[in-house]
């Protein structure tokens, strides 16, 4: 029992920040991201016997956290305002590094945005992204390719706008 808990603690300390950062990048909301992460890790604690043997606890916790985040949004009625892609929306938080990148990521449709964040912030391999999002692996690859292209386009658009403004 103690070994199980040690193992859980180590995994939790390792992953918590990454999960919160990912949920913040997806939702742009610090409090909702923290709450969803806390809920997901508590559920993971309860289910640790089961999920630790699957070898993919990361995908599991992301799936639970994303579902909880979505439920929170829906329940609070904020979903329409914050969840949909709005090019003018703020980046996750002003103190975060690379805010222009995350601002561009926020313009992506939800599925592309989630896939991109799980790949680059959560650092999950495609197979685990597929599991976390409940989609096929082939779909993950295609979604990521489309997302990268769109972010690049969005960034070059904002950069050229900046250049015009300052030039």
């Amino acid at each position, binding site marked *: 029992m103690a070994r199980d808990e040690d193992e*859980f603690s180590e995994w939790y300390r390792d992953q918590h920040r990454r999960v919160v950062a990912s949920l913040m990048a997806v939702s742009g909301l610090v409090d909702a991201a*923290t709450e969803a992460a806390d809920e997901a890790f508590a559920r993971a*604690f*309860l289910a640790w016997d*089961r999920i630790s043997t699957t070898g993919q606890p990361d995908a599991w916790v992301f799936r639970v956290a994303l579902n909880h985040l979505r439920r929170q949004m829906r329940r609070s009625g904020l979903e329409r305002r914050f969840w949909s892609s709005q090019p003018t929306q703020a980046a996750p938080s002003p103190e975060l590094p*690379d805010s222009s990148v*995350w601002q561009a990521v926020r313009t992506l449709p939800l599925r592309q945005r989630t896939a991109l964040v799980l790949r680059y912030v959560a650092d999950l391999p495609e197979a685990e992204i597929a599991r976390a999002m409940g989609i096929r692996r082939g779909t993950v690859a295609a979604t990521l390719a489309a997302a990268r292209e769109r972010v690049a386009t969005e960034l070059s658009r904002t950069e050229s706008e900046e250049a015009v403004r300052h030039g």
Partner: protein
Amino acid sequence: MVDLEDAGRRLAVGVSVETPPIEAVRNRADRIARRRRLAAVSAAAILALGGIAAGIVSTRGGSSSSLQVVNRPSPAVSGPAPTGVSSYVPSGVTPALPFPPSPVSVPRVIGMTYDQANLAVDQVNLGIAISLVDSDTVDPGIVISQNPAPGSTATTFFTTVSVAVSDGPTQPLTGPSCRSQDLRLDFGGRVSEMTGQNTTDLVLTNISGSICNLFGYPTVTLLDQAGKVLPFEYSHTGDMMTTSAQPRVVSLRPGWSAYVRINKYRCDVHADDTAAALRLAVPGSSSPPLSSSFSGFSLDYCAEAASTTVTISPFESTELALFDQH
């Protein structure tokens, strides 16, 4: 082309989020496990009896509105506290329930405070539903009546005892407005907060020798350790912890108390300062405000959008009336 790998890595390590200690995870897991077991008990009860209901009903002003469930029998609390991961019942396995329900004598709770009544009813594994009722004969916060009657036979986990709690006189008592010097300011007991909420109740006790009345909202100012006024905004609209009810006159006989709740959302990322004391002025009183230092409780100040507003409740006759009413 932006390097998403690098940006992702920087975000993952750069976000200033505190990882709660493992005990916090365990506590939350414990609450989830209890909730699941309670849901299993409720489901069994609904199947057996066709439904149970527990809640608080406010009859203030003639209209009746459902408030929140205050207490339900929770079989989980009697078992040993979970100590580790493996002690939890795996999902998909029906947990052991303290069934079958058994007959029990309904305790007498009339004359108790609602906290005492809650406890007495919970101890025999019955549910409780509380309604707030104006009363000219019973002091605020005291149970006026109950149903089923004391001594009658009820069934554990199935019967809900309805109690009516006094919310103060039906009409304001004749007396002047309370001045600061008529009142003593204390902090109330800790409130079981929802996630992220920082809630504290203030108790204003009439220490003068005669009746006085409070109406509306206090003017609250929060100060940091150095006595600097923190630039919070104050709201009277209510929130998830705080009633949005309109103010009513709270009449205080000598020794009676009025209650006020202050609540705000925590600072998620970083606290710039912390409130260490508060000043409270009552409406219409020109005397110096009351003041008190926080102890065992803190309110962080930061510029985060969700966190700059402090919700203040109107004066209420009972602590129960401070809760969000929906």
